[in-house]
């Protein structure tokens, strides 16, 4: 009898707390979004599963000695997001951006989503029950960069307690780009503007593609060294791919290594979806602010493109400004699709890839700004 009582007391049923059950449900919701709704499944599936595993009572997988505890140290050290960024660099082709460098300005403009959200998060302190410090506000704001590893890197440095919510918001909104962006893009442009066809891009040579990551890393070192880890690892991956002499390494960086790290990173982000950190008013604030961040980033990219179109000698379709938020290559595809609604023969995809990869640089630069100005 005594033994059966002991046995019963060792079950999960006996030990489950309400918050743990809710967090497991959140994990299942993420799995549903990943598998059925195709929401960034590469990340949201491991994150969701990590949320489930870490909220199993008694098992203690997040306690010292548990597998998720060890995995999280790869995030705490910043190693996982930086390795992912290296792999992303190895997959990125800067050709379209180098063919039309002024699209970098679109990638810059879209980062206004980050800084407006920073202000918004601070302003939210007037709402009772919400309380964000400057560091937390900055970590939330980086969701507006629409770049997963950058968001995780910054959050792990500035506000690790919000890491789970921020990562989930970042990847969810990245998956929602095809829903969030088009209405904003249509509202801010005229039918005529959406019809604008752009000049074909020149072919960019190999030398330029090799020099560019080197130039970028030097400029970062000179002007914004706090962005150097992110930008540097990105440029390393990109250089390995562009130079063509270390294909073994760039392929491994862009495939097996990024896959392994993605599993570990996802699980350990999920392990931070604990009830006491997630089930708070603040999480609603983060979700709301994240959506606002994407909307503002999209809008400022489009507006910047409109301004540039006015002053540019060659025509610029304002829709490609929306791709400045990064979320590669989803945002560029959205720009292309919205463009073809107005002009079925308008192929904006390559033109939008310029601001799209510029947005990756832009958000890494913005991350560097936040990391250097906020202590």
């Amino acid at each position, binding site marked *: 009898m005594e033994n059966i009582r002991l046995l019963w007391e060792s079950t999960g049923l006996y030990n489950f707390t309400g918050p743990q059950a809710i967090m497991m449900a959140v994990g299942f919701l993420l799995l549903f979004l990943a598998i059925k709704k195709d929401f960034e499944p590469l990340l949201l599936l491991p994150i969701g599963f990590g949320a489930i595993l870490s909220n199993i009572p008694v098992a203690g997988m997040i306690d010292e000695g548990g597998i998720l505890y060890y995995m999280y140290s790869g995030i705490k050290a910043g190693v996982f997001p930086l390795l992912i960024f290296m792999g992303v660099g190895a997959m990125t082709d800067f050709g379209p951006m*180098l063919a039309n*460098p*002024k699209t*970098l*300005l679109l*990638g*810059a*403009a879209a*980062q*206004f989503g*980050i*800084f*407006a959200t*920073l*202000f918004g998060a*601070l*302003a939210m*302190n*007037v709402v009772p029950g919400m309380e964000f410090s*400057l560091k937390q*506000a*900055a970590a939330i704001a980086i969701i507006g960069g629409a770049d997963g590893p950058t968001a995780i890197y910054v959050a792990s440095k500035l506000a690790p307690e919000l890491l789970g919510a921020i990562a989930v918001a970042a990847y969810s909104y990245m998956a929602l780009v095809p829903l969030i962006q088009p209405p904003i893009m249509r509202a801010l442009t005229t039918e005529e503007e959406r019809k604008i066809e752009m000049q074909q891009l020149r*072919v*960019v*040579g*190999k*030398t*330029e593609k090799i*020099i*560019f990551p080197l*130039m*970028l890393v030097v*400029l970062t070192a000179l*002007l*914004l060294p706090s962005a150097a880890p992110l930008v540097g690892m990105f440029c390393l991956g990109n250089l390995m791919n562009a130079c063509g002499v270390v294909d073994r390494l760039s392929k491994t960086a862009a495939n097996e290594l990024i896959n392994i790290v993605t599993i570990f990173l996802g699980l350990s982000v999920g392990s931070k979806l604990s009830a006491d950190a997630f089930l708070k008013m603040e999480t609603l604030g983060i979700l709301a602010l994240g959506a606002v961040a994407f909307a503002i980033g999209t809008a400022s990219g489009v507006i910047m493109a409109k301004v540039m179109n006015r002053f540019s000698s060659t025509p610029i379709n304002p829709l490609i400004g929306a791709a400045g938020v990064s979320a590669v290559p989803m945002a560029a595809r959205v720009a292309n699709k919205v463009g073809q609604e107005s002009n079925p023969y308008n192929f904006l995809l390559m033109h939008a890839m310029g601001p799209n990869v*510029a947005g990756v*640089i*832009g958000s890494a*630069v*913005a991350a560097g*700004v*936040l990391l250097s*100005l*906020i202590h």
Partner: protein
Amino acid sequence: MGATLFLGYVMNELLSSGIELMLVGMGIVFTFLSMLVVFINGMSSLIQRFFPETPIVAQQGDDPRMIAAISAAVHQYRKKYSKN
């Protein structure tokens, strides 16, 4: 009421640093990426003048159906290979 005042003061402080961050931050981002535009333009014209590259000819058209067949076979092969 003193507390409210104090809170208000803190809020003002926070919001003004938010605005400052917004201005400084966007300033840096724009400066940085604008410089990148200038440098890229410089680099490209230098390279195109002094190290002109013959544009790479598009890869000779592999028959797409063949590629499809082969990649299916590769996939099969990999699947088989990965299980034993």
